[in-house]
């Protein structure tokens, strides 16, 4: 009965024997397995080093830009009232919504060189806007503030370290705040200090909710009810919502959808975080990234594919034997795939470890020549997603690379395997002269015996070098001076600090005097000197021109 069942029984679970044969085959030839593991490790090393470096650079560029903008959120919606803001908060399609309220601007003389903005932030918003106090706390009472260290330095307060911050807590600071149609000087108590960022466009003074409600209360009406007649003054007290999306791509599209979905007016003003990778991800950029990934994948694929084909050729008789004793094609494929898995695990682990170390060591060298290194550190950003992506990318490359080898092994005929040789498509050329046979000639002819194989081997070696030199050129070959010369004509620009300070109402345009220019001309190293003249004026527009101007502004901001 048992014998009958054995003969006629259905195909059931034979994973155990497949795993056993695969594992033992791998262990039986440690030298060969080592070569395969090393080839996978090398490819993974290349992938993870590239992804570590590029991932770190992207994160750092993004971080630097976020600090300039003053927020790390994906997008923002401006000038909302409480009801409009709450609609966004309750929108489940948005990952995160925080809000800040613009209260006023500090216009003390000491702050001529700084745009000091007074806002109300809750805890989440303060963290997103890089103004959460490192020492102390957020303000609660009307006369409390948390402030940027650069503002304190402008007032000649020593605020260079955390110890300095600690000593400043509880001290008074008198600020002249400009709000909606009013100006008020008030003494505040410093309860929190955060390190100001030199690259930020504005330095933040965080005021309490109590102060905000008194100084710049949030209007109940919508800004957009009559936006045409609204001025900048009408923005005080309004809520700026800061939004994050679940998928950090196509920010413009997503924020416009969110505005429409929540019934906000069509002309609601919004901004997107232009520093984020997702903000500028158009199809051209995505196509380029996909092409680069494909090139990187191809270089790894060719190496591993060649290695496995050689592996299968050397084991072809074993596969034929297994076929003879009844191993089906599917089972042979599983055996080869399982071997690939056993090679992949140590290879990927070694490759990722080495790649991350190499990437971390190379990154400071690469950043050394970049302007961004002035404002940001060069430590590699090791992210679990980079690790997982590198591992997955490598494993998928191995699985795809092995497919041809599995097909070869599974298609072997038991009889052919007994006397298997590679396809000999070599057509001997008649040679008119007899040449001395040398090892070099033999090697040369052997290389070109199979032209297709020769092509793929050369391509795999060449492609790795291509990837390396492309990445190196992209990173190092960028000439910053040449790039900047598209935007700037000069090395230095000198002007009165109020010239381009938005916080200041009284701009001084004649701060550079002729005597000052004479002194500058005497400085060593000055090769050329030129002047820019400016005068503020008010352009009178009729209603038609004003409508056209407003329309163009709308189009500009929406783009």
């Amino acid at each position, binding site marked *: 009965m*048992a*014998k009958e*069942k*054995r*003969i*006629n*029984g259905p*195909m*059931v*679970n*034979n994973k*155990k*024997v497949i795993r*056993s*044969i695969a594992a*033992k*085959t791998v*262990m*039986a030839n440690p030298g060969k397995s080592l070569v395969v593991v090393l080839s996978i490790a090398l490819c993974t090393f290349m992938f993870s080093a590239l992804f570590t470096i590029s991932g770190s650079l992207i994160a750092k560029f993004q971080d630097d830009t976020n600090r300039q903008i003053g927020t790390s959120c994906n997008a923002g919606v401006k000038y909302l009232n409480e009801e409009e803001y709450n609609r966004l908060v309750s929108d489940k399609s948005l990952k995160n919504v925080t809000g800040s309220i613009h209260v006023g601007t500090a216009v003390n003389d000491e702050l001529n060189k700084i745009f000091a903005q007074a806002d109300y932030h809750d805890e989440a918003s303060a963290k997103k806007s890089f103004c959460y106090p490192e020492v102390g706390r957020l303000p609660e009472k009307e006369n409390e503030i948390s402030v940027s260290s650069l503002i304190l330095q402008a007032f000649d307060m020593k605020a260079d370290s955390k110890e300095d911050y600690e000593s400043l807590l509880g001290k008074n600071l008198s600020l002249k705040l400009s709000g909606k149609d009013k100006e008020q000087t008030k003494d505040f108590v410093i309860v929190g200090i955060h390190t100001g960022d030199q690259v930020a466009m504005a330095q933040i003074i965080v005021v309490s909710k109590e102060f905000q409600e008194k100084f710049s209360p949030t209007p109940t009406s919508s800004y957009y009810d009559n936006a045409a007649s609204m001025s900048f003054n009408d923005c005080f007290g309004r809520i700026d919502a800061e939004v994050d999306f679940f998928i950090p791509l196509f920010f413009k599209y997503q924020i416009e959808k969110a505005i429409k979905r929540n019934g906000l007016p069509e002309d609601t003003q919004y901004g997107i975080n232009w520093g984020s990778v997702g903000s500028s991800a158009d199809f051209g950029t995505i196509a380029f990234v996909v092409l680069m990934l494909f090139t990187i994948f191809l270089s790894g694929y060719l190496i591993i594919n060649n290695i496995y084909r050689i592996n299968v050729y050397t084991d072809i008789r*074993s596969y034929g*034997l*297994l*076929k*003879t*004793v*009844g*191993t*089906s*094609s*599917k*089972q042979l494929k599983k055996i080869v795939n399982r071997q690939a898995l056993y090679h992949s695990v140590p290879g990927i682990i070694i490759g990722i470890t080495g790649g991350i170390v190499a990437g971390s060591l190379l990154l400071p060298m690469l950043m050394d020549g970049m302007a961004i290194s002035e404002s940001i550190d060069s430590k590699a950003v090791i992210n679990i997603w980079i690790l997982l992506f590198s591992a997955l990318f490598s494993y998928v490359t191995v699985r795809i690379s092995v497919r041809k080898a599995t097909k070869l092994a599974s298609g072997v*005929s*038991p*009889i052919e395997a007994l006397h298997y040789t590679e396809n000999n498509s070599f057509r001997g050329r008649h040679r008119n002269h007899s040449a001395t046979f040398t090892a070099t000639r033999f090697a040369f002819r052997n290389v070109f015996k199979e032209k297709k194989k020769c092509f793929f081997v050369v391509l795999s070696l060449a492609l790795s070098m291509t990837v390396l030199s492309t990445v190196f050129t992209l990173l190092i070959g960028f000439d910053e001076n040449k790039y900047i010369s598209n935007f700037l004509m000069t090395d230095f620009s000198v002007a009165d600090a109020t010239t381009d300070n938005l916080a200041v109402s009284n701009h001084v345009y004649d701060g550079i005097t002729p005597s000052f220019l004479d002194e500058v001309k005497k400085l060593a190293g000055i090769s050329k000197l030129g002047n820019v003249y400016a005068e503020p004026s008010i352009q009178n527009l009729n209603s038609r021109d004003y409508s056209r101007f407003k329309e163009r502004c709308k189009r500009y901001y929406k783009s």
Partner: protein
Amino acid sequence: MEILRVTDLKKTYGTGDTAVEALKGVNLSVEKGEFIAIVGTSGSGKSTLLHMLGGLDRPTSGTVSIDGKDIFTLKDEELTIFRRRKIGFVFQSFNLVPVLSVYENIVLPIELDGNTPDKEFVDTIIDTLGLSDKRDSYPNQLSGGQQQRVAIARALSSAPQVILADEPTGNLDSKTSQDVMGLLKVMGERFAQTIIVITHNEEIAQTADRIIRIEDGLIANKEVLTWQKKNA
């Protein structure tokens, strides 16, 4: 009861001027439990015939039926599975899987089928073949005769319909050859197994019940019953 039937089996290698007719129309019938030796000189087509009988190669024309089933109507994958379940092989060069132990080699066809080996049955085979103390050894640790015994055990373990042995003593010395042939015969009788042995050695062939001669791709007109069969 007929277990194997070959009808007008032909095999031609190559085409045109280089075509070689290895089998020119072989007809053969084998009863269940028979021990048959197919003898012939080198190049007579005996190995080709064995490969056809075992489904290792496909003929140019003709049929091979095992237990009533025309094996060449099966697709390659089905044929492989059929071979695993119904046919046992013993080769001249043993063809053991070098990375598996003796025991693992013996039960390989059963485990490939996803079944659990019948421990008692397998142990009986191992004991009968004198391999009890070699269960955990690897093929490279065995002598030629021992390796061939493992191959025989593997062929028997799945209780196939037919065992095909291609020059099973080709790589063995005379003494070991006698032992191996003796074991084949004993195992065939003990387990009521049908065995077909290909050999060029007339002396070896004498252990069989029936000798079939093949020359130039055709079965010779007269079959020879050995003295065992005559006196059965």
